[in-house]
């Protein structure tokens, strides 16, 4: 046994590694320009150029850092725009204007203008696929009008607009109102032969941003949008998320409304032998509002309301299906996946789903389970 082994070889290790002058990848936090969000637009002047806008936080301006106070939150971020033939080209041009290296590891939002989305975004997405720094969990969003407007909002609640946006989406996800569509999901859905992707769709005004629904894609091309009511029906049927409150006009009253808040959603898809699909969706929830008293006993009230909500939801789903099938011809319901999984030999092999989805008979059946009436007795 030799005694000095450990020390000797450890010394060797240290000496060798330090002789090789390490620290290639060491780049301190403050030496990285962390891009929190990227927006991609068509350049106004040149059809073939992309305009890329990025949002970079200015650490020293962030309130609360090292106790200095942040001053006005308005200029806590720097917004820069560049043009380029491709995304990487634009990023290159941007790097030339920055003192620090661009760092995409913290990019949380990728905003795409509707114009670009309608043209197809395959070329844009390729660089996001290859770049290892990009997170698969970032949220691509389609913006009405210019995508850069999304980065330029001044929400005031948060000093950094992207943090506000993240909060908006995360909260919506938790409530089950906004679908959690990440970049990774988009990749999976575009690769997958059985389904089509969709992305969240927002509209930004000067100081605010509001979620408007989802943009439906076919391949890499945006086909159109679904408004928030349809989206909620979509996520009930697709993601088993409850969606938002359902407000329905009460029949036989002048101006009465009833509001139903779903808490849990469950769905089941069955394929009949004659190749038609039925979505069974069960919603559990409470009555949260009843603007006009109906003066009927509770038992009757419950059954009446359940029937009312069921009818309303089935109508909405029918509209949704109409739009998806006839207008956009895009299967974002993951119906094709079910078909391929369960009826591979007898259906999938003989049909071209991308074409046949349009005419595939789909029915939706809702089951409403009214659980509670709130703190009121009726």
């Amino acid at each position, binding site marked *: 046994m030799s005694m000095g082994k450990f020390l000797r070889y450890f010394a060797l290790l240290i000496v060798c590694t330090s002789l090789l002058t390490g620290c290639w990848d060491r780049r301190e936090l403050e030496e990285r320009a962390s891009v929190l969000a990227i927006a991609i637009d068509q350049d106004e002047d040149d059809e073939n150029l992309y305009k890329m806008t990025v949002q970079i936080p200015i650490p020293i301006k962030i309130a609360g850092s090292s106790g200095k106070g942040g001053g006005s939150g308005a200029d806590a971020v720097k917004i820069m725009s560049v043009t380029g033939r491709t995304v990487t080209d634009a990023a290159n041009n941007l790097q030339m204007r920055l003192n620090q290296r661009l760092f995409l590891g913290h990019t949380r939002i990728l905003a795409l203008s509707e114009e670009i989305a309608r043209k197809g975004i395959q070329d844009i997405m390729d660089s996001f696929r290859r770049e290892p720094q990009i997170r698969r969990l970032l949220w691509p969003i389609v913006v009405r009008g210019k995508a850069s407007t999304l980065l330029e909002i001044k929400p005031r609640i948060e000093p950094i607009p992207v943090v506000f946006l993240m909060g908006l989406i995360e909260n919506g996800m938790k409530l089950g109102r906004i679908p959690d569509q990440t970049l990774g999901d988009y990749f999976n859905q575009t690769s997958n032969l059985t389904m089509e992707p969709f992305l969240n769709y927002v509209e930004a005004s000067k100081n605010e941003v509001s979620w408007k629904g989802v943009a439906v894609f076919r391949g890499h091309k945006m086909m159109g949008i679904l408004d928030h009511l349809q989206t909620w029906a979509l996520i009930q049927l697709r993601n088993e998320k409850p969606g938002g409150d359902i407000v329905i006009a009460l029949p036989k009253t002048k101006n009465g409304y009833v509001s139903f808040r779903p*808490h*849990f959603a469950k769905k089941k898809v069955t394929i009949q032998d004659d190749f038609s699909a039925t979505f069974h969706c069960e919603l559990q929830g*409470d009555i949260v509002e009843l603007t006009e008293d109906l003066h009927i006993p*509770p*038992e009757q*009230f*419950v059954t009446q309301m359940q029937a009312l909500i069921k009818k309303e939801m089935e109508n909405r789903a029918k509209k949704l299906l109409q739009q998806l099938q006839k207008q956009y011809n895009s299967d974002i319901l993951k119906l094709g996946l079910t078909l391929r999984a369960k009826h591979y030999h007898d259906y999938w092999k003989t049909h071209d789903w991308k074409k046949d989805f349009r005419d595939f008979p789909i029915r939706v059946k809702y089951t409403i*389970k*009214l*659980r*509670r*009436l*709130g*703190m*009121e*007795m*009726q």
Partner: protein
Amino acid sequence: MENQQRNFGTWQITSIMISSMIGVGILTIPRTSTMLLQQAGWIGPISGALIAGVAVTAIVYLGNQFPGLTFVEFMPRIFGSVIGTMCICLFILYQFFNAGITARVFGEVVVTSVLPDTPLEVIIVTLLLLVLFLCCHEIEVVARVNELLIPFLLLPSLLIPLVSFMNADWYNLLPFHVESWTDVVKTGLDTYTLYTGYELLMVYFAFAIPGARLGVASITGMSFAFVVYMISVIAGISVFGYEELQRLIWPTLELVKVTQRTGWFLERFESAFLAIWVASVFTTIGNMFYATIFSLRQWFRKGIRFQRISAIVMMVPLFFFSLIPQNIVELYSYLKHLTTMGYMVTIFIPILLAITQFMRNKINKGRKENIEKGGT
């Protein structure tokens, strides 16, 4: 079978009685008792107490007659084995369903008011697991747990109505007149359900220390519950007025909400109230379920291991049973059916038992006297 020691003191018996009686019912009692009687709703608890009192007397009588025996043991002696077995079955079923319904009602309260996004199942399961843990222990542990939890039960249920008297408008209680006496009886029959739980004494009396004053214990227990209910009803009526009470689903909880005091650390006590209320609901369900399981154990003359296994096994149907009502309205209709069954189990059977036993004693005495006479 192991030898169960008879070591429940008078106060332990009292606390078992109180905590089995005071459960989720208190959350709705201001509404139920004013439904018919309106501003004179406070008569409800009185008439309920009177009805329950009769049954309690019967049970105390039985307890004194059969010291150290649970009803599983003495029922066949009085009724004979066939009817006795039926009665035992009925009793066990009633306790079982009652435990399930109580758990469900509590789950509803929590889900509606405090944790709206938590699945109801989770709340029920956690509560039932707690009960299961209790059921793994011997019966003396039940008594001790009840005894220790009494302050958690009495303090909030007395404190909340008393504090809310600050907002009381006493005119809400007037005029003092009763419209119809049939309403009083009806309300009495309704409010009497709040006192159910005393029938568990048929099990627990068997473990009282020889010489424990059962009568005193049950009178104390009844009066505690009575006072609590009375105050709640009065507070409810005087704060809200009976018309508003009809619209509130959990009036006592609303009482907590209106009770706000400046200068306290916290505002809005309903979450805290419900958190403490877990103790009370737990004792109610725990006592009921324990009685079910324990009766089974006695019936089959098995040991503690049987009790543990059957507790686990019974927990599963209990859980699913508690999920049967689809919504709150259905839940209340189930509750109503259960009450009907309750009349049978909690009033009819004890009284009948007591009368039969009384008659038997009389006959026996007569016979004895006859024999004595014959001897002389």
